[in-house]
């Protein structure tokens, strides 16, 4: 058989495709990232705000430091995800292992896993065809929003009826300064806005899409929150919905925060028609409330929360590639193989796999990257360009010889700033020995020229006057390094944003300002010193904590790539909570799957399993951890060296204190009901009442447990299948059968399961009478109290995190108030933890389905692989250093560091800032009252010299 390719093709450059590409590229695979549009970013780059924590970004774009909120106090804002996303666009665009191919599509894929021949067609080049060889393929072609035009009763033809996406653009375009929203028809401020949920979702009558799109509830709530923030309490916001589905991690808290604001209503209703008053442009919404009363209400604007669907082009692509789709045109997957398509070697992630929000898309993308990479693991690194750097030139003692390269950035800078005069001016500045101007300084040709000029003119400092270090710094630093100049001898003057963009209407002043900025940068360049990056070896071992489905999947994913894994399990056997479960809602046998996993884990010689294991101690940092583990009850101690850690400690079912649980044996949890159905069947059951949200969405546990609605629906269908005459009632607050699970909710209703809604304030009551159990509830449809006599009451008990207080303390891992581990970024880094080299997966992160746990476990393995694939890690030389002789140990740095890096070393009796852990944010340097901390590359004189240069001008 032919040797496998070391390249992967990723189709679709949205948030999922980008994540998959980055994971693979950082694991030393060559990536072809193909998108049919001219740019990368996908749907996400069109949204002004991607999620509830993104609210802040509207207010303060510069607030982002990449750190996740650390406490409940800062919830739900504090970090701006858009800034992070634009960083990611840069990471993809500038990555040397990622080849971005835009305006192109896949015509065909021939061959098989390891050796696919992909035929691409380029639409920008007269539909020219080209061939690329890859070993595996990831499809992440995303979705489109549902077009509501065909549903005329929704009034989309009227100017003041807009879709959610259009509404977000309106908010974004709203009047600068005041930020007030104007409606399309007459540019007046709306007084009342209505949101219509489930447009094109959960609708088999007219919309045609029976599934739940999973994202519209949250985005509607986010829109309410954004618009309320701008327009204040006078604006009336009404969200017409069937159920509010805020099932994601912490989403319920966000919903509660928005729900209780003045002038915000969430109404259970069905929409009849939306019609326009042609005089005023206002809209009349005719709807039916829960009790069946038809009502009319007038709104200034209506937002249609349109769902997601698969574009025709994706369906055709799947057909061409021979990939099976389901009845909604999502790619058909197995619950135990969530990112695997029907064609070996082709993986699937993001919305093409099923409707989902950003974190799940990003997670699946990493999971797909893991499997796509594993397929061709023997060829890892083979397709990469080898870059060898010459030995570093010693510049110590040399007078600064500065080269200034001024960029036109096409017309981006050159269209406003007089670049030639800036270049001329630069040549008059002290220490400048060479200047140049370029159309695109970041192009390959210009960078080659910079290299030549460095050598020819013996430059020892380089100033690039273009954009920012964040944007292109890494690229130019590499250019310096490639000709032997230390990469930290680079300075960038941001004349694009600071001059050309903000003063586009005043070219003369923009040019003058560009000169000022260049003068400042030249002054700084003269003060730069070479810095050495710390290089640390990576221990190619992984430690996985928790031997449930997530932990075992993570272990296998790494073991199959040849990395050594130690898998710790606190119990005597592997399997975790899944051992208590029977079948998935799709009917898959969970216990058989667990047994299969266990034997696969045991058979893999790369995986060492330690059961009855306890973590006693832990030290070290990314690439070099040492964890002390005690096995069994005795003193069998192990010191495990590992480069990465994956936390998969799992969760359990909440043990209810409510509804006579534990007092009456006829009151069961859903898990216990499953057991009972397996053991005894349902022939003896006349009626069952299921009560939802027990131990969830209440004061004690504010969040939604995500999976209990589907557990109830699963068991309800099971009972109905076993005994169609049994009466099954589900008492619920909102049914949250998100995504494709909605089909099962529909099936349950079709089979005669009765769903009765109740409010948080008026929960059902359970009484024990001489005739048996009686449940009292107020039926909102019938508008009267019901009493239901029943044989069994089943409590849909929520998900509670396993007790990890000890592990979290020893390993310094952040957990939220519910005890679930905290990810580095809720949307864009859902499996990374804040500590580098540590990842989280499964229910340790939050409640989730088995299929979601598996995807997250594979994702964690993928993220871990980006570390393990490397022999060494190079750490940024931008770190803080403390002058311990003058430090007064006031602890201000210890308390101010968002990453908890500075510590008081009791042995040395001084403050210590670890070079390996420091993130280089500079906060400690700025707060130190004795000014004893300096941040390399941003030392005091390297900053103040710029101010002096500015004032001297």
């Amino acid at each position, binding site marked *: 058989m032919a040797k496998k390719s070391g390249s992967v093709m990723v189709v679709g450059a949205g948030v999922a495709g980008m994540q998959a590409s980055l994971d693979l590229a950082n694991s030393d695979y060559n990536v072809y990232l193909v998108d049919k549009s001219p740019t990368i970013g996908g749907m996400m780059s069109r949204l002004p705000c991607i999620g509830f924590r993104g609210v802040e970004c509207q207010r303060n774009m510069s607030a982002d430091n990449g750190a996740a909120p650390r406490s409940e106090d800062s919830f739900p804002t504090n970090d701006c995800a858009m800034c992070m996303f634009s960083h990611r666009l840069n990471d993809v665009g500038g990555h040397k292992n990622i080849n971005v191919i835009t305006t192109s599509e896949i015509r065909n894929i021939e061959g098989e896993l390891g050796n696919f021949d992909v035929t691409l067609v380029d639409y920008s080049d007269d539909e020219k065809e080209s061939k690329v060889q890859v070993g595996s393929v990831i499809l992440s072609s995303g979705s489109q929003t549902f077009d509501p035009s065909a549903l005329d009763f929704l009034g989309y033809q009227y100017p003041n009826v807009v879709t959610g996406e259009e509404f977000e653009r309106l908010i974004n375009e709203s009047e600068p300064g005041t930020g007030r929203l104007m409606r399309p028809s007459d540019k007046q401020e709306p007084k009342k806005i209505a949101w219509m949920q489930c447009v094109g979702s959960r609708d088999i009558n007219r919309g045609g899409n029976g599934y739940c799109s999973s994202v519209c509830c949250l985005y509607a709530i986010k829109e309410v929150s954004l618009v309320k923030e701008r327009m204040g309490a006078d604006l009336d916001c009404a969200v017409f919905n069937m159920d509010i589905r805020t099932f994601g991690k912490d989403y319920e808290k966000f919903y509660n925060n928005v729900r209780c604001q003045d002038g915000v209503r969430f109404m259970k209703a069905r929409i009849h028609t939306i019609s326009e008053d042609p005089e005023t442009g206002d809209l009349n919404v005719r709807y039916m409330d829960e009790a069946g009363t038809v009502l009319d209400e007038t709104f200034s604007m209506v937002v249609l929360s349109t769902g997601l669907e698969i574009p025709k082009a994706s369906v055709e692509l799947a057909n061409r590639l021979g990939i099976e789709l389901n009845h909604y045109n999502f790619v058909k997957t197995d619950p135990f193989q969530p990112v695997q398509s029907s064609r070996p070697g082709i993986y699937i992630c993001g919305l093409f796999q099923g409707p989902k929000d950003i974190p799940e898309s990003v997670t699946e993308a990493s999971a797909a990257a893991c499997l796509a990479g594993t397929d061709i693991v023997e060829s890892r690194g083979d397709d990469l360009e080898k870059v060898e750097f010459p030995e570093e030139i010693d510049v110590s003692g040399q007078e600064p010889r500065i080269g200034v390269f001024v960029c036109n950035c096409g017309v981006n800078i050159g269209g406003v700033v007089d670049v030639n005069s800036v270049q001329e001016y630069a040549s008059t500045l002290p220490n400048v020995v060479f200047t140049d101007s370029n159309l695109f300084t970041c192009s390959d040709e210009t960078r080659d020229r910079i290299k030549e000029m460095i050598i020819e003119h013996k430059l020892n400092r380089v100033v690039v006057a273009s954009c920012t270090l964040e944007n292109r710094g890494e690229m130019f630093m590499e250019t310096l390094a490639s000709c032997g100049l230390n990469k930290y001898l680079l300075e960038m003057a941001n004349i694009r944003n600071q001059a050309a963009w903000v003063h586009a209407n005043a070219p003369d002043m923009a040019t003058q300002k560009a000169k000022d900025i260049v003068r400042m940068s030249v002054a700084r360049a003269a003060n730069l010193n070479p810095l050495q990056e710390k290089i640390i070896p990576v221990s190619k071992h992984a430690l996985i904590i928790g031997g449930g489905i997530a932990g075992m999947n993570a272990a296998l994913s790494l073991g199959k790539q040849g990395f050594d894994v130690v898998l710790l399990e606190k119990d005597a056997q592997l399997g975790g909570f899944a051992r208590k479960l029977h079948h998935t809602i799709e009917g898959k046998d969970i216990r058989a799957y667990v047994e299969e996993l266990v034997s696969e884990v045991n058979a893999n010689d790369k995986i060492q399993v330690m059961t009855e294991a306890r973590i006693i101690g832990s030290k070290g940092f990314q690439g070099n951890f040492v964890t002390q583990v005690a096995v069994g009850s005795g003193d069998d101690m192990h010191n495990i060296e590992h480069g990465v850690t994956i936390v998969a400690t799992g969760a359990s079912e909440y043990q209810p204190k409510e509804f006579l649980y534990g007092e009456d044996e006829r009151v069961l949890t859903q898990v216990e009901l499953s057991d009972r159905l397996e053991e005894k069947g349902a022939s003896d059951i006349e009626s069952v009442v299921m009560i939802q949200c027990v131990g969830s969405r209440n004061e004690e546990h504010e969040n939604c447990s995500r999976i209990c609605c589907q557990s109830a629906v699963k068991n309800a269908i099971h009972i109905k299948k076993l005994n169609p005459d049994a009466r099954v009632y589900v008492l619920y607050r909102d049914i949250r059968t998100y995504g494709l699970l909605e089909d099962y909710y529909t099936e349950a209703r079709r089979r005669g399961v009765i769903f009765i809604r109740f409010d948080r304030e008026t929960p059902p009551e359970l009484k024990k009478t001489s005739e048996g159990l009686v449940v009292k509830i107020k039926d909102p449809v019938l508008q009267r109290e019901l009493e239901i006599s029943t044989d069994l009451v089943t409590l849909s008990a929520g998900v509670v995190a396993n007790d990890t207080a000890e592990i979290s303390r020893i390993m310094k891992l952040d957990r939220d108030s519910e005890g679930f581990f905290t990810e580095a970024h809720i949307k864009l880094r859902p499996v990374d933890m804040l500590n580098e080299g540590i990842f989280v997966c499964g229910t340790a992160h939050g409640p989730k389905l088995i299929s979601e746990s598996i995807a997250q476990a594979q994702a964690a393995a993928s993220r871990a692989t980006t570390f393990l694939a490397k022999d060494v890690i190079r750490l940024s030389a931008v770190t803080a250093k403390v002058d311990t002789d003058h430090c*007064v140990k006031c*602890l*201000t740095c210890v*308390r101010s560091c968002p990453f908890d890096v500075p510590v008081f070393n009791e042995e040395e009796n001084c403050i210590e800032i670890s070079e390996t852990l420091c993130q280089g944010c500079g906060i400690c340097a700025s707060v130190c*009252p*004795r*000014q004893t901390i300096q941040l390399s590359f941003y030392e005091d004189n390297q900053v103040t010299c710029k101010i002096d240069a500015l004032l001297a001008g």
Partner: protein
Amino acid sequence: MIVAKRKPFDEIKDMLKGYKKVLNVGCGTCVAVCLAGGEKEVDVLNAELDMARRLEDNPIEISGFTVERQCDREYLEALDAVVDEYEALLSMACGAGVQFLAERYPKKPVFPAVNTSFIGVNQDVGWYEERCRSCSSCVLGMTGGICPVTMCAKGLYNGPCGGTNNGSCEINKDQPCAWYMIYERLAAQGRLDCIMDVVPPQDWRNQTPRTVIQPGYKKPEAA
């Protein structure tokens, strides 16, 4: 730790209005730790003064020098060589430091830039709370480690008084009643007998500056 707070800027500016060349002396110990008078605050204050005086067309030449501790003469020595160049000294140390500086350079006007606030604890960055009035006769042993002199508005040795109000003090419901806390803590420790006897009042009259000489040490002859 001694906690201080910088004086209002206008007050500092006013004190220095007749001087053109001033040395601002920081202190690297307590006031640095409480973010009132270390290197950073010296720099910040100097920059503010520089700007304000320039705007008034009355420029000031102001330099900074932060010593390890202004209450130790060995550390003040470092200033001897430079003090003569200046018309006046500004001190960002606590009241003790200011006086020690003034004592060392009796010919120079010395001005305080901070108000010395109290002896306290650091609750978090920038957040300090008073805990001790340095009364010279500590009763913490019998009061469960809660100082009635500092924490009780009346500084009572026998309490609580009639103003105790469900755990709060009569002066303010956010102010806890010290004697209530003392009672609770001692009750929890089973040590209520500690406060059963009436303690005679402290003689607060005729307070004179106190001196401490640790056992085994004596006052140096020269001092």
